[in-house]
């Protein structure tokens, strides 16, 4: 029997459990071989439908392999290779198992051709990624991990409700373009679940809440899979949904605004994930061939440069213990390699020519242009300036340059630098040879990123953003604050709710509801009970007492007869016999 198709996700999910059994060098080798095997598995796949199983009369499709799922599977498995190399030094099996399961879940979502298998892998991702936060094992991380888990359970329930409704209405579990059901309840519930995972405001506050609290290596994994698998399912089901155009563009700016206020290095980067995913969501919404290609290409490039940025910030956190920009500064002296590699990621996200972001982001912006959407075009370009401002200028300035904090770190372990180096190479290769990426995009579209106008206007925009940065540098000095986001509703709002419950609501309970209870239920019940008690004491009791009394009286009468004297008893017996004889004589 030949094995037709091996699910790369299953390879990782099952393979992860070998790691705890291994030790030392063999374990580290296995940690790299597993994701490499998944990558090779994806690269060898040919389009088709595989892994179809029948369940409850429905076909579950575990292997829908086409151009769209293939390119996402390439970048997901490539990312898992980089992530595992970055985590090689970590001696915590639980983290490795959770990370590989998480990647496996993302690959499962990518290849799922029906809603039920999609849902299973969706939930698997939520749980395994929550573990990557919880396994930091510090109080704030555990709290953030539980909030993260609760939000994603909520999202999972929305998805499940949508799926069941869709199933009951259409009789099919197949997952494809949802445009035909546009505006329906099932359509909306599934869309809301997808948007929650894509971190679209107001459903996206879980991302900057949880990612900065995750383990150094876990956060690198988290940046890649949850939001980008959500982008994938949005492309699959919701391409051309007008709402997404505006949500995406607003989201791109929202992330930038919060990044201005942010002091925590990894939280600043987390807000830029939201901003960057905004471009993809916007591209999905525009929905033309160029736009969905752009969303796909940007997801691909984004996963690699964002991982590189998180690896850089993670390296600083690990080597210095610092996470706040207001406490860093001057690290360029002790961590120049980390700085150099971080900057490659910074240039890539800022769409500097010859770096990956330039060839991917411009597809989405050009798609907005081709679609004659001037407002969207201007919003996305503005957000680009903001991206360079924070990720390319503010964060490296305060982290590595700026006021010398006197803190000094060392370069991180070699495996972390190797992972960062590989990610950096990927960012540059995609930027210099965009054809490699474009060849695998889902739609056949001719797009030339390196035109004179595009290069000069991008350089102009970046250069003058830098000028603005240095002019307003004083304004940007990081201040130790936190910013309100929609997580307020379940962090502070919930506390207010419990205060409301304990204060006015409880007074209402004891006062109003309690009074009604008193007069409608308690008083009548007590009255009836009282009546029964009276009946009990006067009738039942007196009957019992009466029987007792009459018995007593009767026995008092008897006592006069029962004297205890043998002569009296003999006399009574003789009288009795006499009476019997008289009776016998009369009857005869």
């Amino acid at each position, binding site marked *: 029997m030949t094995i037709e198709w091996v699910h790369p996700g299953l390879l990782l999910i099952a393979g992860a459990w070998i790691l705890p059994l291994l030790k030392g060098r063999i374990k580290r080798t296995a940690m790299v071989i597993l994701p490499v095997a998944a990558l090779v598995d994806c690269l060898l796949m040919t389009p088709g439908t595989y892994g179809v199983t029948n369940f409850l009369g429905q076909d579950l499709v575990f292997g829908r392999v086409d151009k769209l799922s293939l390119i996402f599977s390439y970048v997901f498995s490539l990312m898992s290779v980089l992530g595992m190399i970055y985590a090689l030094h970590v001696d915590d099996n639980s983290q490795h198992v959770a990370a590989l399961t998480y990647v496996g879940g993302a690959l499962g979502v990518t290849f799922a051709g029906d809603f039920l298998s999609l849902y299973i892998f969706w939930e698997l991702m939520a749980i395994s990624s929550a573990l990557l936060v919880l396994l930091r094992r510090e109080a704030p991380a555990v709290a953030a991990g539980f909030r993260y888990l609760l939000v994603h359970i909520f999202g999972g329930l929305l998805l499940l409700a949508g799926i069941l409704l869709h199933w009951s209405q259409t009789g099919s579990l197949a997952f494809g373009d949802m445009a035909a059901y546009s505006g329906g309840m099932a359509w909306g519930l599934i869309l809301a679940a997808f948007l929650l995972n894509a971190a679209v405001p107001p459903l996206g506050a879980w991302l900057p809440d949880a990612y900065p609290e995750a383990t150094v290596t876990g956060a690198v994994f988290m940046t890649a899979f949850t939001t980008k698998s959500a982008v994938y399912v949005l492309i699959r089901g919701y391409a051309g949904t007008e709402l997404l155009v505006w949500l995406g563009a607003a989201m791109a700016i929202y992330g930038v605004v919060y990044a201005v206020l942010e002091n925590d290095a990894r939280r600043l980067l987390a807000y830029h994930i939201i901003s960057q995913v905004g471009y993809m969501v916007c591209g999905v919404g525009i929905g033309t061939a160029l736009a969905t290609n752009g969303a796909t290409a940007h997801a691909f490039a984004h996963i690699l440069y964002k991982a590189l940025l998180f690896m850089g910030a993670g390296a600083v956190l690990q080597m210095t213990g610092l996470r706040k920009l207001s406490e860093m500064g001057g690290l*360029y002296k002790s961590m*120049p390699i980390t700085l150099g590699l971080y900057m490659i990621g910074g240039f890539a996200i800022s769409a500097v020519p010859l770096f990956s972001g330039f060839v991917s982001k411009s597809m989405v912006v050009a798609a907005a242009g081709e679609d004659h959407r001037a407002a969207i075009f201007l919003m996305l370009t503005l957000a680009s300036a903001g991206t360079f401002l924070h990720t390319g200028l503010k964060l490296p300035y305060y982290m590595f340059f700026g006021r010398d904090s006197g803190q000094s770190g060392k370069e991180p372990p070699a495996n972390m630098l190797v992972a960062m180096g590989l990610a950096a190479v990927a960012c540059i290769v995609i930027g210099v040879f965009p054809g490699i990426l474009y060849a695998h995009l889902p739609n056949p579209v001719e797009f030339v990123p390196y035109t004179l106008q595009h290069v000069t206007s991008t350089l102009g925009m970046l250069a003058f953003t830098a000028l*603005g*940065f240095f002019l307003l540098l004083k*304004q940007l000095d990081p201040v130790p604050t*936190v910013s*309100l986001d929609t997580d307020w509703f379940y962090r502070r709002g919930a506390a207010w709710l419990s205060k409301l419950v304990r204060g006015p609501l409880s007074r209402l309970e004891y006062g109003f509801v309690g009074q009604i209870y008193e007069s409608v239920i308690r008083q009548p019940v007590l009255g009836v009970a009282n009546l029964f008690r009276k009946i009990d004491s006067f009738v039942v009791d007196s009957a019992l007492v009466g029987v007792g009394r009459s018995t007593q009286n009767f026995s008092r009468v008897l006592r006069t007869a029962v004297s205890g004297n043998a002569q009296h008893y003999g006399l009574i017996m003789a009288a009795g016999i006499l009476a019997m004889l008289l009776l016998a004589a009369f009857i005869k």
Partner: protein
Amino acid sequence: MNFLQKQLEDPVRFRLIKRGFYAGLVLVALAEIVLPLIFQGNESHFSFENFPAWGSVYGLISCVAIIVISKLIGKLWLMRREDYYDD
């Protein structure tokens, strides 16, 4: 002392870097105005893109707008003490 340190801690070299930056700005803005005139070919989608040095101008406006408006929103509304969620 690494290469970067040498460049940044020597005031003479630092001044050179600063001047280089300003020269770069002028060069980039000029390139944006002049090059399209020499090499014909317009791929603008909107008329505002034909404004001279559009990228540079919009880049500066965007940068300043983002900083000023975000700080304003932050100070008036969003920013809270670090221990805001702690009690």
